């Protein structure tokens, strides 16, 4: 418990410093000026999302190989947190698009692949809600999760493969790309802050899944006792 409080306080300090650095330390961008500072939250959200979805991908493979419940708990938890980060990335992108491009949204390669990724993982969560039996639910959602993850690298390379509305990558983007060194440092701090927040939320969400498993086990005990005594049994725990 002490370690949890310490980690949370440390993360809060990093988040606070990242926000301060993004707004006041990072230099002004020449063409977009202050609106470019959305970049630090925007890229932070995507970094956290890719980290969460990579964890989910590993957990999906883990379940298919070992069939241990903790892989399934980790998978659903990281997908849910990944969807939250993706939502943050999409919203900040929309709010950046309007002043920078004059439009809220366009169906360009990067935006479309991101939106498809978001829809795929929403479908993953809906699919889980439709299957009652835990083992079958974990297996089917793991297979679907691996399929959905195929879109993640496509999102990453989309603005390298197709030059449409979204700007070319500024990091690892080739000879004409790059950022001011102070911008790079602020960006790294922002990305670290968002990933740290994601990890804390993921840990909370994982504990929730473990608690749900405990409820299911207790319900099974009650059902077994009710079957023996002939009383009505409690219904299974809700997955919402």
């Amino acid at each position, binding site marked *: 418990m002490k370690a949890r409080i310490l980690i949370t306080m440390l993360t809060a300090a990093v988040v606070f410093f990242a*926000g301060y650095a993004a707004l006041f330390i990072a230099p002004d961008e020449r063409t977009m000026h202050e609106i470019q500072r959305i970049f630090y939250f925007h890229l932070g959200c995507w970094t956290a999302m890719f980290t969460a979805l990579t964890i989910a991908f590993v957990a999906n493979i883990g379940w298919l190989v070992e069939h241990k419940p903790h892989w399934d708990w980790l998978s659903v938890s990281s997908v849910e947190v990944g969807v*939250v980060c993706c939502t943050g990335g999409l919203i900040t992108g929309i709010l950046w698009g309007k002043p920078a491009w004059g439009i809220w949204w366009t169906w360009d390669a990067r935006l479309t692949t991101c939106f498809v990724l978001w829809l795929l993982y929403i479908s993953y969560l809906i699919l889980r809600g439709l299957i009652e039996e835990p083992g079958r639910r974990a297996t089917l959602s793991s297979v679907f999760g691996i399929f959905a993850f195929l879109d993640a690298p496509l999102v990453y390379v989309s603005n390298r493969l197709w030059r449409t509305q979204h700007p070319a990558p500024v990091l690892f983007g080739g000879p004409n790309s790059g950022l001011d060194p102070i911008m790079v440092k602020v960006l790294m701090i922002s990305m670290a802050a968002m990933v740290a927040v994601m990890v804390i*939320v993921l840990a909370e969400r994982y504990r929730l899944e473990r608690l749900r498993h*405990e409820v299911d086990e207790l*319900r099974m005990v009650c059902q077994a006792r009710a079957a023996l005594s002939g009383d009505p049994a*409690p219904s299974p725990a809700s997955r919402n």
Partner: protein
Amino acid sequence: MMQNFHFLFAAWIAVWAVFFLYQMSIASRAARLREEVEQLKQQIREG
């Protein structure tokens, strides 16, 4: 120079609002489940 500041402010608020609402949803679901665990344990104790 500061004409687009409201977009920057909205983006900053949106990111933290999304995380805050999600965290609240986790906390409320966990509280409900903890209550259910206690009820079930009591049910088992009472036989």
